[in-house]
């Protein structure tokens, strides 16, 4: 049985991100493209951060997922350009993050990159009266905040 490019894209879009399982690798922008060459499938992915330790796990999951569908000849390519950005995440994905307890990234700008997101809101109570605890959190893509209104600590997905 042959699979179309569209079949494979929708199949791979089911794979959740290993660190943030509420959004898929496609919503996160890690899955870049799929090419079908006869029996062979070439999947191109890009890392969020250079050192993201989840890349190997994602590669394995792609292979397993396609293997389950009888696709044996799979090549997973890693590209660095065009460079990954949180701007590739749509509003729906951002809302999923918020519901999961992670403050979603704002619009990307150089100013945000150097001085931090201007408007970070608590994912629980919505207050923007928040305090940055650390630029670096539990994963490379997140910063650590505390909400001054409801006193809850929370992760923020850094705009990148």
């Amino acid at each position: 049985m042959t699979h179309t490019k569209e079949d494979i894209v929708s199949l791979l879009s089911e794979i959740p991100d290993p660190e943030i399982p509420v959004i898929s690798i496609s919503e996160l922008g890690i899955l870049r493209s799929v090419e079908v060459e006869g029996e062979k499938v070439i999947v191109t992915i890009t890392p969020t951060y250079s050192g993201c330790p989840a890349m190997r796990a994602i590669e394995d999951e792609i292979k397993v997922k396609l293997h389950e569908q009888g696709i044996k000849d799979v090549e997973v390519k890693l590209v660095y350009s065009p460079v990954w950005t949180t701007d590739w995440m749509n509003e729906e994905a951002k809302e999923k993050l918020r519901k999961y307890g992670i403050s979603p990234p704002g619009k990307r700008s150089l100013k945000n990159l150097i001085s931090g997101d201007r408007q970070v809101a608590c994912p629980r109570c919505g207050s923007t009266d928040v305090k940055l605890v650390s630029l670096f959190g539990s994963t490379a893509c997140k910063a650590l905040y505390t909400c001054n209104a409801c006193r809850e600590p929370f992760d923020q997905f850094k705009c990148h």
Partner: protein
Amino acid sequence: MTKSINELISEYALRIGDTSLILGQRLGEWCGHGPILEEDIALTNISLDLIGQSRAFLTYAGSLEEKKRTEDELAFFRDAREYKNTLLAEQPNGDFAQTILRQLFISTFQYYFFDKLKQSKDAMFAGLAEKSFKEVAYHVRHATEWTYRLGDGTKESNDKMKHALSELWRYTGDLFLMNETDKILIKEGIAVDLHEVKKDWEKKIREVFLQATLVFPEDNFMITGGILGNHTEYLGHILAEMQILPRSYPGAEW
């Protein structure tokens, strides 16, 4: 014998990758030893970014050389003289002040360097530079904020920053060392003219020091040689720790 352009690009990629690798390895030493939990996480996060960057640059370096070495072969099976990292990266962590100041110097350098490398005619360099630049922007912010706090903090923290400065300043000149390789690659539009980076770097460090109540040293005595493989004694010790496993058990996997 003249080197081919690919060999020169490979050498240039090694320099960039080696600096990230050695600094990343150094910062990894803080794991479990950070002064507070958030800093333990921050320093190791930065380490992770750096090692990720080095993997990409070393892989590229290996792909262009005749021996076609992999990233692992380059990282684990070269001796100190074959490493091209900047001398500052291999300097010991010292106390937290010394680690922060080393971060400020190198991250600020990388920030302006990668910003310019984005324009490289070598597409791989341009792509990797764009990615690394965004990550380094966070590293600069982290080191800058701590430099303000420690420099303009208590007498003790200010003393520690001054001590760190006296330990590290003489290695800052090595960041900007260039040789024939640079000359050729700059002409080709591939490499970055470090004279330009130096201007931006000095301006930024002067600004940060002013706010941190630290005095910018006018001492121009510098120890250089990283790109030539002339390292300080500290590199050998790092490599011993980093390389012992793959060298004792070649081909080991887990």
